[in-house]
């Protein structure tokens, strides 16, 4: 945990610097604008467009440095802890759960939300939850069907269908 505390503080510090850099960017229509021209006070107008994000990102950076100092002086629980940041169990779990969410999102581009939802539920219920096949299939099929009627039909929020769209055309015929 001690190492993770420092690594995180450094990474967040780098993020802060990136945000400061981005905050200073000029408008895209004006190729002559100078970076960081917008972070100060404009006369008679008050702060420029980059003022708020730039200086707050600087505050972020400062608090990361403060966290670094606390780390060095071993003041926070995390900086004293010898417990590993991710136990093997946690790492496996994160990989299985977090990874499956990323796969879920990737699949939405191909199979749409309903198809991706179906596969995700089968994976999670069957392989992580070790539920019976019948229970797995009934939930995995029931949730997309319920969602279709709730979102597409009742709420008129049309979820993307990916390559499965042609399958839904007859359903639109009946329900919409």
């Amino acid at each position, binding site marked *: 945990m001690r190492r993770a505390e420092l690594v995180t503080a450094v990474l967040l510090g780098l993020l802060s610097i990136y945000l400061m850099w981005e905050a200073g960017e000029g*408008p*895209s*229509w*004006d*190729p*002559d604008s100078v970076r960081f021209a917008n972070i100060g006070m404009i006369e*008679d107008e008050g702060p420029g467009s980059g003022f708020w994000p730039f200086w707050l990102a600087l505050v972020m950076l400062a608090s990361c440095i403060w966290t670094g100092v606390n780390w060095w002086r071993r003041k926070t629980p995390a900086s004293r802890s010898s417990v590993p940041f991710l136990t093997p169990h946690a790492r496996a779990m994160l990989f299985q759960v977090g990874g499956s969410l990323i796969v879920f999102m990737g699949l939405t*581009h*191909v199979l749409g939300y309903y198809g991706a939802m179906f596969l995700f539920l089968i994976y999670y219920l069957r392989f992580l939850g070790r539920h019976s096949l019948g229970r797995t299939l009934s939930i995995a099929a029931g949730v997309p069907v319920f969602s279709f009627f709730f979102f*597409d039909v009742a709420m*008129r*929020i*049309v979820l993307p269908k*990916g*390559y499965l*769209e*042609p399958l*839904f*055309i007859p359903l*639109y*015929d009946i329900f*919409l």
Partner: protein
Amino acid sequence: MSIMTFGKNTLLGAAAVAISTAFVPAQAFEPIKPIDFVIMAGQGGGADKMARLMQSIVEKENLAPRPLVPTNKPGGTGAEALVHMNSASDPDHTIMVTLNSFFTTPLRQPGLKVDILEFAPVGRMAEDTFLLWVHKDTGITSFEQFLAEAKKRGRGWVMGGTGKNSEDNIITDHLNNAYGLKIKYIPYKGGGAVAKDLAGQQITSSVNNPSEALGFYEAGNVVPLVAFTDEWLPMFPDVPTLKELGGDFSYFMQRAVVGAPGMSDAALAYYTALFDKVYKSDAWQKYKSSKSLMGDYLAGDGLKDYWKVQRDRHTKILKASGAIK
């Protein structure tokens, strides 16, 4: 992500074409899935109100076999909506309600690579009008008095308006340049907030659309001084136009429906006919007259020519005010 969307587009498009050619003749287009009805502004604004009214009319009169599904995409004064339209996976089922940011946003954000003339001209539903409003406690009742008072106060005269480099800003700039004024312009997020701050005398004037200021006008809180139109507005018979007072300036807000680039001719013909019906409906005509909207239905090449004129005009205006180079 863009690569994946592209792959999906082609395949989906192919599937849609396959289905549409299989079941209906190519000439008579009918939507086969819910129509993506993009609104180039946030919920509750003027464009949103109109879009939802159009949607209601289509539903109520049962004009289309599939519903219009409104989606608000206000990001970057319409930049997000324009990009969404440009990369629409199914242009035959994607239409958008636009305002004047349709002209200005592609000019202000060239990185979007949007050419508005590629959009399908479905139909212009109306042109919204602008008036100059002041609070009644100022005692000002005519444009001349306004000019005198604004000149006297210099930067102390404050105009509130919706957005920077927007319609309201353009009109304010014109007043400043043409009459040698130094009005200070404060951008707001929406016309409603501007109207409220004028009624509360947080600002000294506004150039609200009639629909935004009507409540306070009827209650007698605010007074219209001049209309930025070519003809008198029937709702405000005592208010002269700027042209009558010697100014060579009028300005309107387009309220038009456009189709995504790449929309087929059959689909364009379908939507043009659909919105023609909406335009002719009683509900729309009533709304149009009660909110003092002008402009006739305009579609096809006529609408495209209108866009060309408007784009050139806005290029000139924005260049003059230093908002683009």
